[in-house]
């Protein structure tokens, strides 16, 4: 019973991650893609936890929740600002 439950959690997280990765690739606007990438990061953290890797999950959470989106959004803002001026 416990193993079936573990498997169910793993399968649910795997499907979530696969769907989030697909959505991130298909979102062509980089600013909106950053939001989907953040969800992919959360999904990966969940998957790593149910695979009993809390260390890796913590790493993924730390990086994916605020730092990477901040860098992507700042780059997008910089690129757009220069584009608008031309």
């Amino acid at each position, binding site marked *: *019973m*416990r193993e079936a*439950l*573990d498997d*169910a*959690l793993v399968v*649910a*997280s795997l499907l*979530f991650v696969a*769907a*989030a990765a697909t*959505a991130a690739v*298909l*979102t062509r606007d980089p*600013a*909106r893609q*950053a*939001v*989907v990438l*953040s*969800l992919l990061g*959360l*999904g990966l*953290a*969940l998957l790593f*936890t*149910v695979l*009993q890797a*809390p260390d890796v*999950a*913590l790493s993924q*959470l*730390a990086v994916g*929740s*605020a730092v990477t*989106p*901040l860098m992507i*959004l*700042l780059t*997008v*803002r910089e690129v757009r600002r220069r584009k608008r001026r031309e």
Partner: protein
Amino acid sequence: MNGWLVAAAVLVVAGLGPSLWGAARGGAGRRVVAQNAATLLLCLVFLLLAQGYGRPSYVDLALVTSVLGPAGTLVFVRLLGDEIDAPPPGLRLLTPLVAVGTPATLVPLCIATGPGRALLKLLVVGALLVAGGLVTSRALRHA
């Protein structure tokens, strides 16, 4: 039968799944609301998993999520500000989610944990979740 793990699985399927749907389509505002809901739900899932697996050290994950989740949402609000239409669709659901979801998960966990340092950690996570949830919905409303 491990009720904690069942509850976590239900939250993943019925909570995180729809959040991904919300974040993958539509305007920027709706996506950020969905992202915020996802961090809150994920934090609750971590707490339930820690209890379900019988590993108190997994609570650290929830602790980090409860701080960095709202920080991430504030990053989006700050830098996507002009793209977010005020008030973004779905924002109305956020406050009830925080107000109902957090105590509904934390009260049983606190009772199961009993007094001690672990309880204090749980209460800190709960306080951070409520404060973060309220502040991010306020920020989204004024974006």
